[in-house]
């Protein structure tokens, strides 16, 4: 079965410290992976994606994510957290059933609430 797991409901980190939000996946074939952020009372904003190529992907607001095929993970990272990074983070993977060209749906994780403390 194709799935995405975000093992932590909540992550707490002090401002200025590095942060990691974890994501693991299970799909057939090569994964297309995405990270989104949702600030309170806002829609989802795209952060970054991995399609192919370099395993380290850089995105918006200083975030990056590392694709690890052997561990089937795509953890989101930032070297120095800001209080304004406090939000809900979602990992998603493209549903590849039916082939890469036939299905546009995303499979979503349950989300991780990040709290950055001053």
């Amino acid at each position: 079965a194709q799935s995405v797991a975000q093992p932590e409901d909540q992550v707490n980190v002090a401002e200025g410290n590095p942060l990691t939000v974890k994501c693991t996946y299970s799909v057939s074939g090569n994964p297309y992976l995405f990270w989104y952020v949702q600030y309170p009372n806002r829609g989802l904003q795209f952060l970054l994606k991995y399609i192919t190529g370099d395993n380290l992907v850089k995105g918006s607001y200083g975030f990056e994510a590392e694709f690890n095929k052997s561990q089937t993970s795509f953890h989101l990272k930032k070297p120095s957290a800001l209080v304004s990074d406090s939000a809900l983070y979602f990992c998603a993977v493209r549903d590849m059933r039916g082939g890469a060209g036939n299905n546009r749906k995303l499979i979503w994780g349950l989300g991780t609430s990040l709290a950055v403390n001053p």
Partner: protein
Amino acid sequence: SAVISQKPSRDICQRGTSLTIQCQVDSQVTMMFWYRQQPGQSLTLIATANQGSEATYESGFVIDKFPISRPNLTFSTLTVSNMSPEDSSIYLCSVAPSGGAADTQYFGPGTRLTVL
């Protein structure tokens, strides 16, 4: 990217009534989607809105309850019919501009619906 607007941004409705939510994109897009999200929870895909044909609904969602229109490549509507308090949720419109498997989905700001 695409700029997406939704109307209304929020509404409070009575049980048994219907509400139509509009989604407008600033450019032509291939794919449009409708999601439902409880505050602080994950997203649930309701349907994919197909231009010029019927929407494709996910398991647990039916056309009679959630009729969808997509008259062109920049606009779609979702109607929540015969509402009950269980329909209280945030409804999100999303688009994939080119529709390719690697394409990014972009989201509107959402419509917060409360059913009394």
